[in-house]
């Protein structure tokens, strides 16, 4: 995975005097499924809107599939975007939406979407307002995929779904990725889900990028260390403490190790899961804010 689908450099968006997103630099490899995570207000939706050209940056630049994002057809024809509030017309049925997609898109795979919805047992002639939340999400996803995008941006697509509908939605998404040629960036709060379907993670917190890397590397480079508190200060070079908690005698540190770094003795070493690592980065950002060092 060397080709890059999305690259941003010091990207920022300001509303009045408030920076919704600041100094955001990410690289998203072609064919990856990136989890975009961060606390509420971290700038996730802002970033997705900038990437799809729905808003323009106040600072920095972005390159999406080799182009500068803009609401122009030659850019948008390769991009699928699903906003948080699943944008469907409640009083139209799936067939109407498919017809609309056919008119609005140059590239349109009608057979794919009809087959897919039938496979899922979703009636094509029932107004979508009367479908379940999970079915509506599936219709919206199938519509976004029917234009055969090279990049799919999803803003909290599974937030409102029950666990089964969530599983089915992510399964549809994974199958689309398995067909090849698709890069996905998906924001969500459900870290466990993201670890399953993603192979790349972007952590935004305090309006900045805290982490952007492939999940395997992230898992490999982070360790959870438990040991005596008096050794917590001299860990040596190449050990980057992301998050620490202390009791009077014991310290628990989540650290990132540089390549080839040997850990000092005295420490019991554990493998943190991706959820623990992400939480550590979010916690670090929060403390920076409270400390006023930003």
């Amino acid at each position, binding site marked *: 995975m060397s080709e890059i689908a999305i690259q941003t450099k010091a990207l920022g968006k300001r509303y009045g005097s408030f920076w919704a997103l600041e100094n955001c630099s990410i690289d998203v490899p072609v064919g990856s499924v990136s989890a975009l995570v961060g606390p509420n207000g971290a700038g996730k939706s802002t970033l997705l809107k900038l990437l799809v050209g729905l808003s323009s940056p106040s600072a920095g630049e972005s390159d999406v599939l080799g182009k500068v994002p803009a609401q122009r057809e030659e850019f948008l024809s390769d991009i699928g975007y699903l906003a948080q509030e699943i944008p469907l017309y409640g009083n139209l049925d799936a067939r109407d939406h498919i017809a609309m997609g056919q008119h609005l898109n140059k590239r349109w795979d009608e057979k794919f979407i009809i087959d897919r919805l039938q496979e899922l047992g979703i009636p094509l002639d029932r107004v979508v307002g009367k479908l379940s939340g999970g079915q509506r999400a599936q219709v919206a996803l199938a519509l976004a995929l029917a234009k055969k995008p090279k990049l799919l941006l999803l803003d909290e697509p599974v937030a409102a779904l029950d666990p089964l509908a969530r599983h089915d939605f992510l399964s549809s998404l994974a199958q689309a990725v398995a067909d090849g040629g698709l890069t996905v960036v998906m924001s969500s709060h459900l870290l466990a889900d993201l670890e399953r379907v993603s192979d790349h993670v972007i952590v935004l917190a305090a309006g900045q990028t805290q982490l952007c890397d492939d999940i395997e590397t992230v898992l490999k480079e982070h360790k959870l260390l438990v040991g005596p508190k008096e050794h917590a200060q001299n860990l040596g070079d190449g050990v980057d403490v992301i998050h620490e908690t202390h009791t009077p005698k014991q310290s628990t540190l989540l650290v990132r190790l540089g390549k080839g770094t040997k850990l000092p003795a005295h420490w019991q070493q554990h*493998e943190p899961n991706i959820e623990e690592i992400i939480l550590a980065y979010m916690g670090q950002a929060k403390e920076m804010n409270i400390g006023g060092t930003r």
Partner: protein
Amino acid sequence: MITFRLNTHSGVPPYLQIVQQVKQALQVGILRPGDQLPTVKEVVAHVAINPNTVAKAYRELESLGITEGRTGSGTFVLERPSGPSPEVQEALSKDLEIWVAKARKAGLDEESIEALVRVSLQKNPKGGQS
């Protein structure tokens, strides 16, 4: 046909979990040489995991000589993974059962037993002298 499970709290990379599950399935006879593994798309439709993860696991299995990808027809099991024979494994497993029984008798709960196993694994790292 083998189905995969993913433990997202283990800290073990997902692709390695799949590799391990195929190896285990071979060791206990759920999979046999000549069997076909599910396609990447079948796996992700069932488990909702990243297809790149499955593809990577399959590549790893192939490079270990356990499976073979045949263009256009899928991934097939070639042989049992190298390692101790079923007899040796069974003997080791019996030894462990005796030890576990001892540990229980001494009053250790399951968590403490697991912790002891982990500690002894750490004391005897792979490739190190014990």
